[in-house]
Structure formats: C-alpha cells, structure tokens
C-alpha cells in the first residue's frame, strides 16, 4: 500500500494527508463548539489537563503504531504501564533521593524487558501477537497485583522532586508534553527517513516479500515490541508523576484507548501504512473528547460509546477511500498489481 502511495500520483498522497487533515478538522470543530458553549474550556488549567492526558496516551500510541505498522498488535501496554508505574512508585518511596532521570530509565527498562518478552514469543514461539499480548496482558497485570497485594503508593510518600517533575513546565509547556514531543519527533523521523523505519512498513505490507528482500524480520519484530514496551513503561513513569497515587490497577483497560488512538489516527490494522503523527493526533482527539464531554455536561458514559463509534468510522472510511482509489486506478488502466 505504501509503495503504491509513493509511486502512484500525488492524488494518492493527498488522500492520505487528507486523513490526518480530517482529524485536525474534527478536533477544530470539537474545540470550537465546546469553547462557544463554555469559554472555560479554553482556560489554562483545562488545556493543561488535555495536554498532560494526551502526552501519556500519545507516548503509548507511538509505540503501538510502530507495532501495528509491522502487522502485529500489542494489547499488553496497559498492564506494562501499571507494572512500571508501581515499580517506579515503590522504588522512589524507598529511595527518595533518586533523580527523576533514573526513574524514567527504570520505568522504560521494565517496559522494554516486558516488550522484548512479547517480541521473543511472537518471533521464536511463532505465536500470533494477538494471543501473546492477550496472555501477557493477564500475566503482567497479575504479577503487579500479586506484588502490590492491595497496597498503594500515595502522593505524600513520593519525593517532592518527582511530583514537581509531573507539574513543572518549560516555556509554559509541561515537561511531560516535551517528552512526548521528543519521542514523537524521533520516531516519526526514523520511521519516515531511515532504513530501519522503512523496513517496518515493508514487513507490514508483505511479510514474505520483506523476508525475500533480505530484511531481518526477526530483529525488527523484536525491536518493535521492545520499543512499544519501553514506551509503555515510560508512560508508567509519566502516569506516576502526574497522578502521584499508584495502585496495581493503574492503566487497566488502557490498551483499548491506545489501539483506538492508533486506529482513529489512520494506522491500518493490517499493517504497512500510517504514521506516528496520526497516532498522536488520534490520542489528542480522544483526550479532547473526554474533556469536552465533561465541559458540555454530557453524560460521561457517552465517551466510551463515542470512542467505539470513532474506531468504526475511522476504519470504515479508510476502507471506502482505499476502495475508491483502487477503482479510479483500475479505470485509468494503471497496473498496480
């Protein structure tokens, strides 16, 4: 699909740009309508909350996008976030002097190890990613519960420097958002401009062709899952810094929002297309919907239903666009296949 995009006509690339444009328009409409009905929506505190929420979701969505582009899926990210948050929480409670950077590294490390495990099971166990990560979703959450045993880490037990990190800003933008932006930029550039990134798309488009083309599929699969796990672990640290209170249930069910952000952001579940920018926009849209509903005083219960409807709308419209493009190519006698 990607190669077709590259070779065939600006028309196609316009379509794919239009997908991200669609999210931006939806966002603008949502923000506009909400702000008109209640100007408090554009207050500093409200925007800050949206940005912080988006930052954590976007970090996880970037990792998920990388995995989904290779035609896999990682359902264990919510559990990895929980394990990492609890690990870092207890670590900081017991060692208040630890610098924040160490916390970030430990969290990401815990996640990366879990992700590597996922990748190894997928690659060497020859088990579909859906089954592996469904299993590790249970296993990792169970380990966290087992370890926590009902206790939780409270904000007053965490060192002040760590909580300050969750609130501090640089140039008026929270640290958490900076971290998300840096991750987004790096992964965006690697995926777009570097061989390692392009090979992930090749694997997602056609695994057999990628193997025949000499791409080291095993290594790339391991890397994709490790990155996804590492980012979910990092998300756990950000979660801990933002909320301060961590129990074993942290991040339960989050995988659904992460997959939703990725799918709404135009990353095709059959792999091979999409971008981390789209995934991040999807995360921003989902988070903004949550805040808008609260501001508009619409029943919060609608949120999940809207997320579901958005997923269906996104994958449905993607398919319709693809079908129309294929039809127009056929009419012009282009030989795509």
């Amino acid at each position, binding site marked *: 699909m990607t190669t077709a995009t590259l070779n065939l006509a600006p028309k196609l690339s316009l379509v794919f740009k239009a997908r991200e444009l669609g999210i931006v328009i939806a966002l603008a409409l949502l923000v506009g309508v909400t702000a008109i009905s209640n100007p408090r929506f554009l207050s500093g505190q409200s925007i800050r909350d949206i940005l912080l929420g988006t930052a954590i979701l976007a970090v996880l969505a970037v990792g998920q996008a990388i995995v989904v582009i290779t035609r896999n899926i990682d359902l264990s990210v919510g559990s990895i976030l929980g394990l990492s948050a609890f690990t870092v929480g207890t670590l900081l409670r017991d060692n208040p002097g630890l610098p924040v950077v160490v916390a970030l590294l430990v969290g990401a490390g815990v996640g990366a190890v879990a992700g590597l495990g996922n990748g190894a099971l997928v690659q060497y166990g020859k088990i579909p990613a859906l*089954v592996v990560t*469904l299993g590790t979703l249970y296993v990792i959450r169970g380990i966290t519960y087992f370890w926590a045993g009902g206790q939780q880490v409270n904000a007053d037990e965490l060192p002040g420097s760590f909580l300050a990190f969750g609130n501090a800003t640089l140039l008026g933008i929270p640290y958490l958002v900076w971290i998300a932006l840096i991750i987004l930029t790096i992964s965006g550039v690697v995926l777009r401009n570097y061989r390692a990134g392009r090979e992930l798309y090749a694997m997602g488009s056609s695994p057999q062709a990628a193997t025949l083309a000499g791409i080291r599929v095993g290594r790339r699969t391991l890397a994709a899952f490790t990155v996804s796990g590492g980012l979910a672990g990092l998300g756990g640290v950000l979660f801990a810094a933002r909320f301060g209170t961590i129990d074993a249930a942290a991040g339960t069910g989050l995988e659904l929002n992460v997959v939703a952000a990725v799918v709404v952001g135009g990353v095709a*579940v059959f792999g091979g297309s999409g971008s981390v920018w789209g995934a991040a926009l999807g995360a921003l849209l989902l988070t903004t919907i949550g805040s808008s509903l609260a501001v508009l005083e619409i029943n919060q219960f609608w949120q999940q*239903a809207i997320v579901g409807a958005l997923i269906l709308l996104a994958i*449905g419209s993607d398919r319709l666009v693809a079908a129309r493009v294929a039809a127009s190519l056929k009419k012009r006698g282009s030989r795509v296949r």
Partner: protein
Amino acid sequence: MFAKRGWDTAIIALTIVVLIVASGTVDNFASSQNFGFLVLDLLPIALVALPMTYIIVTGEIDLSVASTLGLSSAVMGSLWNAGLSIETIIPLCLLLGAILGAVNGLFVTVLGLPSLAVTIGTLALYRGLAFVVLGDGAVADFPAVYTDWVTGGSPIPNVLYLIIVLAIAFGLVLHATPIGRNLYAVGASEQAARFAGVRPGRTKFWLYVVSGAVAGLAGVLWTLRYSSARADNGAGLELAVVAAVLLGGVSIFGGRGTLPGVLAGVVLLASLQNALRLSDVSNEALNVVTGALLIISVLAPNAVQKLIQRRHRLLLPERTNAS
C-alpha cells in the same frame, strides 16, 4: 501428528487429570455445593465459547461478546424497570444481541474490514451504550422464580442442562453437518472455499448474528444469576473466552480445532481457577495462570511439533519432510 491432531485430546486428558488431582488435594473441591458454583462460574464462558469456536475456526474473532453481554444486561434492567415481564424481556434481549452481532457481521463482511479492529470498536461502543442505558446503577429486584432457576438445582444445577443441550447442538453442527465442514473450509482457505461453492461472507455474517444472540442470552443468565443488571456485567469476559477456545486447541489462524477440545478448555480454565480460589490463592494471581495457560496452549503444540520433526530427522535422515 500429536501436535497437529491431538492437542484437543491432550487438553481433555489434562482436564481430567486436573479434576482428579484437585478433587483429591483441594478441600471441598469435590463437594456438590462447589460443583454448583463451578458450573455457574463456567456458564457464561461456556456459552459464549460455542459460537466463538465457530468464528475462530473461520479465521475471524469477536471481541465484542462481553460488551454485548453487558448491554443485554443493562437493557434487561431498564426494561424490567419499565414494567415489562421477564417472558417479554428475554426474547428482546436475544434479538438485541442478534442485531449487535449483525452490525459486527456487516462491518466484517460487507465492508471487508478486519474483525479484530471492528470488534475492538464495538467492544467500546456496546459497553458505552450499556452505560448510557443504565448508568452505573444496578437493577436488582428480579423475580425469585427466575433467579432461583438459574442458581438452583442440586446436585446437578439446572443451567447445566442448558449448557449440555447447546453444546451438543453446536458440536453436531460443527462436526457432523456440511455447515461445519464449510466453516473449516473457510478457515483453511477462503478462496478455495469460495471455489468449492461456499459463500464465506454470508457464512461469517450469520456466525456473528449467532454469536451476538448467544452473548445476549449470556447477559440474561448473568443478570439472573447475580440478580443484578449492571452495565459493567461481564467486563473482560472476552479475554477468558478467547483464552478458553485457544486453550482447547482451536487455531487462531482458523481451519483447526474441535468443540470437545474447547469444552475441555473451558472446564480446565474454570476448574483451575476454582481450585486455586479454594486454596486461598488471590483472584489477581489467577490472572497469571490464565495468561500463562493461554500462551503455553499455543506454544506447546508448536514446540512439540518441532521436537517431533527433529526426532524424525534424526531417525529418518532421508525423509526430512515427514511432518
């Protein structure tokens, strides 16, 4: 051979071993009271696993079943509040489930979208609608006649008859009719099945309808069992169901697996959880067992097959393709 055809036999044997060992070592496991609890616990998993087996055999998946169960339960609660009789509500809930399943089916077959993405979407949508319908409250005042029927019956719980009848029906259709053979054909190769005169799209559509209706029924029974209609009823159940089906030897790629194997998977999962709970293992630690079982159930046949191939190669170096 063992890995390819015998995993369901192996899992049935393993289930029997677990049942015997648990009866001998875990206090109260073999009591008739606990047997009743065990049956009630495996009731929703067993019911939803029947159509899920069909769907996975055709190479698709339905992750929205637990949300359909929840929406059916929420609707049941609000219809009861509205003054309808249970006799009217039950068919309405089944119809609702069938319609929700049809929505899945249309997205998967008409639009040709991947079932994983579609049913993750409807997982969120249906659960959200359940909360929209009933909020986070509960409806609890269901007539005792019905709740007693679901929870009652000793030593053989009433609902066990229902499970057995449905399981036999689903088993016969899958293993003794052309419909069942067509499902395997679709799962093995959709294109080949089409050439052989099967209509994969139509087949899959109806599978989703059946899956939705059964999930609707599971919602009704869940509500009556706990005498509580809640929007979050059955949350997360889809994972247990998929785990049980895969544990029972159904290939996630489609085309392979048997219903007796799946039932053994359900019983294995439920009785392990039951035995561990009786041994004071925490509910949360059970998650580890479920997840690990799921991974092992897919890993083990692969590993065994590889071992067998290696042995073949050592014994018969001239016949390397003996698998």
